[in-house]
């Protein structure tokens, strides 16, 4: 505890934004000054450099190994002394570190075939180092060039498959990497100092003298960590940072933090875990994790190995935060059991050396993917199976969605993820269910109609789901003719329930994905529903009814589906009430997703159509994992209390996910069951086992390590306001379904009040008037207010029940970054975009305007403003807007000519237009789904949706930000 409460407060205080996280090193002997950058405060900086202790070449990745026999708590020791030149190399090599996660996800996981190629290359090149062919065979290097592996840890694996073997062929394996001239390191002379011993990574802890001197310099600075700077919210007008709000960095020793999981994948509401539950209760902040486990990553190390090293008692995968007691034993960081290191693991395929288990990619990457051997399969990996269930009732045909769906499917038929085994099927339904026989060999698709809804049977079970590559022509024929087949239908009923049962029957032997397109309330057969919404109650300030399902039919069916590895995705395209609260259950518990396009009509609502088309394209072509399970493990003493997201919780920590997609987020609430005394860090591991669309069983493992603290100020200093808001939103959704909406609203408001009360009473030493909050929580009241004005929780404003329920679904399963935009949209001024501070991505200049507060006060008539709500972009044009902007960007002469319904910006050949389009394009690239642009002027029908997002302003039924602050202050000072 000593080390944590002292030295490591500082790093947490200076949350460096990811891009600037690794500044160049200061002069070695320069005395650390308060307020200087992050690295100045490192305890080891001023320490003399006992060079000979340090082990070199793959430098940046290794200097942090604990000494021999070190138990876990040794991690809290200040990292070993460094030589100044080495520190330089450190900063250089770490520079690209944010890269892997910030790059656009265009480079997905390498395909298995690439992996095979790479394996053989590696084998050949390493063949000259004779002793370990066996190890090589079983632990093939990860597919993709070595840079793939190297990137996530900061470019730290020097030898590339090509030249490694040729460079150092004749050295004994134990010494290879040490003698290797590190081509990427600028400090070759250092390597000469290292004693050639197999235990190079053992380092004596820093001497007490160095420590105390380091501590003394630190204690001077640790008085006011930046995150705890006291702000009087009533006086600070502009708290929003200019750019995106950065995720706080856990105050871990730098060597651990460097290996930690990306905050985009794994995020905790408190980056410092309280030692006891009572401490957590006292802080009044929720403890939980937000995960985005299947996110498209641009860099992902993949490991093929016949034995995956796991703890023998808790089955944790080996990860960067385990401790090696010696070369042969490692200690699990979750249950503290000491395990043996298997023989095979002694060989490092990356550096091609033996005896360095701590340098294996598994121990160097917090996010890693394993190709699972056959023990991880209960049955042979399933093929990719896609079934489309289309509503063809009169109402559905009227909207014209069939054309769009069939067209999209036709276009993307070849890019559906899958291999030669991929199967596809179509079912349409109105008051009857129409199956399509697509068996290879038929001259044209055969329609088979089942009208008995009571007892659904499959007319020809074998030929309804067909191999896509064999029957591609028939599928194409069907998709081309389908939109015309029902144009004259007069059938108004919809038998969704029986159709889903049929789909379940069809899919249950294999598992797969069912995509349902539904346009109205199901009216026939099992699962028929009645309208529950009273339109007059939409704007009522009273409690909202019918947020919970009307029947358990869909839930039961979803659980059946989940058991057979079938996931159901629901596309709702409806102008009328369609009881999303009930129908959504089918997706919610089968790990599907719900997409909602209110008032969809191909002709009358072009914006919605455009969005639907783009979304479908993404939906059809994105990565998919089948028959997946995810287990979330945490260090002994912590346990999962509640799960949020779309899945079925099969046992205490196991989520059953028939399908997993890259756009799904998950959240869990944690509780502290046993006190975490004597622990400096705790770890969380999410392991997602899935079958890829190519029929490979893979395991993606994310591990996050967080410090344990025992003082209230440390807990508050580590609070992550965005994660807290998102977790609270999920909790509030649960509360509004189980209790009531007003209960949920109160609970959310109280969360803000209680935490500020707690901060005031237990952290603040000097009581001042005003509403005081630590810097890290200064946005908390704003986000809470935003949440109260969010569509899901707002009262007093007319909100359709389905819109509300859909917003609630989104709050539960969207990943954090999209969720934050949903809660608190971003506002930018667009008419004065400049290249100042612009991002440069692939030779494109993307201007970065300042984020503005969401208040009408920030709008001005002579400007144009862009609001980004995640799913929509609103471009508001002021009445006396700068004529240059109108001319050069919108391509109109004056304000009166600004079109009312336009969703595209004209592609004009002007610098302003290029900048604006680059910025909007960049925003779109960052989302999986396509935000539609709405051009807004005073008369636009969409103006109210734009104005509703002005969260800081007062409305008839809701407080303004300042009033809300006053309300909170009143409660806090009670």
């Amino acid at each position: 505890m000593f080390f944590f409460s002292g030295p490591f407060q500082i790093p947490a205080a200076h949350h460096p934004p990811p891009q600037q996280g690794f500044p160049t090193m200061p002069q070695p002997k320069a005395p650390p000054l308060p307020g200087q950058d992050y690295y100045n405060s490192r305890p080891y900086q001023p320490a003399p450099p006992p060079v000979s202790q340090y082990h070199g070449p793959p430098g940046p990745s290794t200097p942090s190994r604990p000494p021999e026999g070190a138990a876990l708590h040794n991690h809290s020791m200040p990292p070993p002394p460094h030589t100044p030149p080495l520190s330089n190399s450190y900063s250089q090599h770490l520079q690209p570190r944010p890269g892997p996660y910030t790059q656009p996800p265009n480079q997905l996981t390498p395909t298995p075939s690439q992996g095979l190629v790479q394996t053989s290359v590696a084998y050949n090149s390493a063949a000259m180092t004779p002793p370990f062919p066996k190890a090589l065979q079983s632990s093939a290097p990860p597919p993709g060039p070595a840079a793939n592996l190297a990137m996530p840890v900061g470019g730290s694996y020097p030898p590339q498959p090509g030249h490694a073997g040729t460079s150092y062929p004749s050295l004994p394996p134990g010494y290879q990497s040490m003698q290797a001239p590190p081509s990427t390191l600028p400090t070759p002379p250092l390597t000469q100092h290292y004693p050639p011993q197999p235990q190079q990574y053992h380092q004596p802890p820093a001497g007490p003298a160095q420590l105390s001197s380091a501590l003394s310099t630190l204690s001077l600075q640790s008085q006011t960590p930046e995150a705890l700077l006291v702000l009087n919210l009533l006086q600070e007008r502009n708290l929003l940072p200019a750019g995106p709000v950065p995720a706080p960095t856990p105050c871990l020793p730098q060597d651990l933090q460097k290996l930690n999981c990306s905050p985009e994948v794994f995020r905790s509401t408190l980056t410092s875990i309280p030692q006891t539950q009572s401490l957590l209760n006292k802080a009044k902040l929720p403890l939980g994790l937000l995960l985005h486990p299947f996110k498209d990553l641009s860099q992902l190390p993949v490991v093929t190995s016949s034995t995956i090293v796991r703890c023998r008692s808790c089955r944790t995968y080996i990860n960067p935060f385990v401790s090696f007691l010696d070369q042969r034993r490692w200690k699990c960081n979750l249950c503290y059991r000491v395990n043996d290191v298997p023989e095979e693991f002694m060989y490092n395929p990356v550096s091609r050396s033996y005896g360095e288990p701590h340098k294996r990619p598994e121990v160097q990457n917090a996010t890693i993917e394993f190709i699972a051997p056959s023990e991880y399969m209960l049955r042979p990996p399933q093929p990719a199976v896609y079934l489309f269930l289309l509503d063809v009732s009169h109402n559905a045909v009227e909207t014209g969605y069939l054309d769009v769906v069939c067209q999209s499917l036709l276009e993307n038929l070849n890019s559906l993820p899958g291999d030669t085994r991929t199967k596809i099927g179509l079912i349409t339904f109105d008051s009857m269910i129409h199956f399509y026989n697509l068996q290879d060999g038929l001259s044209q698709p055969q329609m088979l109609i089942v009208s008995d809804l009571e007892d659904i049977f499959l007319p020809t079970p074998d030929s309804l789901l067909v191999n896509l590559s064999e029957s591609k022509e028939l599928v194409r024929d069907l998709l081309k003719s389908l939109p015309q087949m029902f144009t004259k239908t007069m059938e108004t009923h919809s038998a969704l329930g029986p159709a889903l049962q049929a789909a379940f029957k069809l899919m249950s032997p294999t598992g797969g994905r069912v995509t349902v397109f539904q346009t109205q309330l199901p009216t026939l057969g099992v699962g028929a529903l009645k309208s529950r919404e009273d339109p007059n109650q939409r704007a009522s300030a009273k409690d909202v009814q019918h947020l919970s399902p009307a029947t358990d039919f869909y839930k039961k069916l979803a659980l059946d589906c989940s058991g057979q590895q079938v996931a159901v995705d629901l596309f709702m395209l409806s102008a009328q009430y369609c009881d999303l609260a009930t129908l959504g259950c089918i997706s919610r518990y089968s790990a599907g997703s719900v997409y909602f396009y209110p008032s969809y009509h191909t002709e009358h609502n072009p914006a919605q159509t455009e969005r639907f088309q783009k979304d479908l394209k993404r939906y059809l072509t994105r990565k998919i994992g089948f028959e997946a399970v995810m287990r979330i493990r945490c260090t002994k003493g912590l346990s999962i209390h509640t799960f949020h997201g779309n899945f079925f919780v099969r046992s205490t920590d196991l989520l059953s996910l028939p399908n997993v997609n890259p756009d799904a987020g998950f959240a869990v609430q944690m509780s502290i069951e046993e006190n975490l005394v004597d622990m400096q860090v705790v770890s969380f591991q999410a392991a997602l086992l899935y079958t890829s669309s190519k029929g490979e069983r893979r395991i993606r493992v994310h591990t996050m390590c967080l410090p344990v603290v025992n003082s209230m100020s440390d807990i508050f200093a580590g609070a992550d306001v965005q994660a807290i808001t998102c977790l609270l939103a999920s909790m509030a959704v649960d509360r509004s379904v189980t209790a009531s909406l007003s209960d949920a609203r109160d609970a959310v408001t109280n969360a803000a009040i209680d935490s500020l009360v707690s901060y005031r009473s237990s952290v603040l030493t000097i009581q001042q008037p005003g509403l005081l909050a630590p810097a890290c929580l200064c946005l908390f009241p704003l986000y809470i207010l935003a949440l109260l004005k969010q569509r899901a929780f707002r009262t007093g404003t007319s909100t359709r029940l389905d819109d509300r329920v859909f917003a609630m679904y989104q709050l539960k399963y969207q990943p954090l970054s999209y969720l934050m935009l949903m809660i608190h949209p971003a506002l930018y001024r667009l008419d004065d975009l400049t290249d100042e501070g612009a991002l440069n991505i692939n030779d494109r200049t993307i201007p970065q305007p300042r984020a503005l507060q969401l208040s009408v006060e920030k709008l001005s008539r002579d400007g144009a403003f862009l609001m980004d709500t995640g799913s929509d972009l609103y471009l508001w044009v002021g009445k006396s807007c700068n004529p240059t902007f109108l001319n050069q960007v919108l391509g109109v002469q004056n304000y009166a000519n600004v079109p009312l319904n336009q969703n595209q910006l004209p592609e004009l050949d002007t610098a302003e237009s290029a900048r604006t389009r680059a910025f909007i394009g960049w925003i779109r690239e960052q989302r999986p789904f396509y935000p539609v642009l709405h051009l807004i002027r005073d008369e636009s029908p969409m103006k109210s949706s734009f104005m509703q997002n002005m969260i800081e302003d007062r409305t008839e039924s809701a407080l303004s930000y300042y009033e809300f602050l006053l309300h909170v202050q009143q409660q806090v000072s009670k």
Partner: protein
Amino acid sequence: MEAAVFILSLVDCCALIFLSVYFIITLSDLECDYINARACCSKLNKWVIPELIGQSLATVLMLVSMHWFIFLLNLPVASWNVYRYVKVPMGNMGVFDPTEIHNRGQLKSHMKEAMIKLGFHLLCFFIYLYSMILALIND
């Protein structure tokens, strides 16, 4: 007559004790991951109504035989059972819902409830036994 009433309640009570033990065993199986939530909940939901009937039977018996103290002892438990059953939301699959049971510490609260009921039924068992013997002696 009195003896017959108590013999009947004794049998009823035994059944309720067994039921409580069964609830506890099944829930702890779920806790230890021996069975999955779906199986556990469908097993338990089957026995919610029998438990409710058993408990109400004992309560009604005590009411008609005018044993006010025992009646008042039984009444809260019986009404809790009824309340719990009536309060199940429409979208849930019974008192024990597989999708909810791992959330918000529900498993623990179900467990606690089963434990308390077991204690209560044991207490009742001895009261009935005592009353029965007393009644038999008096006869």
